[in-house]
């Protein structure tokens, strides 16, 4: 299971990577915004994308839309982990095809639950 973690704050990437490792996912890579993430996704054969929303360069919602629009990437499950709590935005992410939406601050348990839910749907 190869996971790409996208967040502009390195500390948040580290926290998510550590939590993922605790859950048994050791193969993780990092990107600091959508622009760096997209080429990595195209060449890296990732099984899951975990992304923030508000980032410089390319925002998470645009990354999600770009992934869904790409023939080779469109089936990658996307989990959004963000501080954005506007209903309008959650609805936008849902319509863009997000597979899970976690609001910060979050707990290890919530991350585990959402990942299990995503994988249960895939299987």
């Amino acid at each position, binding site marked *: 299971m190869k996971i790409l973690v996208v967040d502009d704050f390195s500390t948040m990437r580290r926290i998510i990577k550590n939590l993922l490792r605790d859950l048994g996912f050791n193969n993780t890579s990092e990107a600091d915004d959508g622009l760096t993430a997209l080429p990595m996704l195209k060449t890296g054969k990732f099984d899951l994308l975990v992304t923030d929303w508000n980032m410089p360069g390319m925002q998470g919602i645009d990354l999600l839309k770009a992934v869904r629009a790409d023939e080779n990437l469109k089936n990658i499950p996307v989990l959004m982990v963000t501080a954005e709590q506007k209903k309008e935005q959650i609805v936008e992410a849902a319509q863009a095809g997000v597979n899970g*939406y976690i609001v910060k601050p979050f707990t290890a348990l*919530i991350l585990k639950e959402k990942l299990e839910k995503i994988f249960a749907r895939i299987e």
Partner: protein
Amino acid sequence: MLEDNELITDDNIARVRDLLVCMEKGNESDAIEIIDELTAIRETELYQDMGKLTRELHDAISNFGIDDSVSIMAEQTIPDARERLNYVISKTDEAANQTLEAVEESIPICNDLSEQALELHNSWKKFTERELSADQFRALSKDIYLYFEKSNDLVKVKDHLTSILLAQEYQDLTGQIIKKVINLVGEVEDKLIGLIKITGAPQLASSDGDASSLDGPPVPGLAHKDTVTGQDEVDDLLSSLGF
């Protein structure tokens, strides 16, 4: 402006009567003198009012526009505040990284020790149930010795915990800095209110902000329109959309 009761006084009524008498008698020079007196009364009041207005305007300008505190604020205090806030970012970043490093180095040590302890526990159980051969027991003794050696790593874990403890000093430093900036924002607010009062700018309608902009983390105490609070509400919203 002259008030009614300031113009219609017994003195002035007497003056006007005198004026009428002078004019009926054809005494022009006396009549002019009385008219001058009456005009002077009006002019004095007018000059006093203008003087008062000029003084008020001058005070207002010197209290606001020419006030040094405003230019000091613009040239020094606000750039200072920006620096202070940048320092807050770097301090919190530093503390977070220091903490993460300590945690990342401690977790494998804890994992190793707890796994080995579990293995030793199982072997020891077999030993007490007399299920171990002499060779197996010798191996167990060696493993126990190695485990004691390995548990020296707990000293490292303790150091890491101390490092995490010390990293929390950022809260004190950044708290003090942010308090200063809050005070500054309060001062700027007062000055702006003063400016609005002087210029008589109309009250702006309260803005709801741009609906499509990103708000970032919600702040308790600030009203947020159409936002959820917490993961449960996000889950409810998504399930109402058929998620």
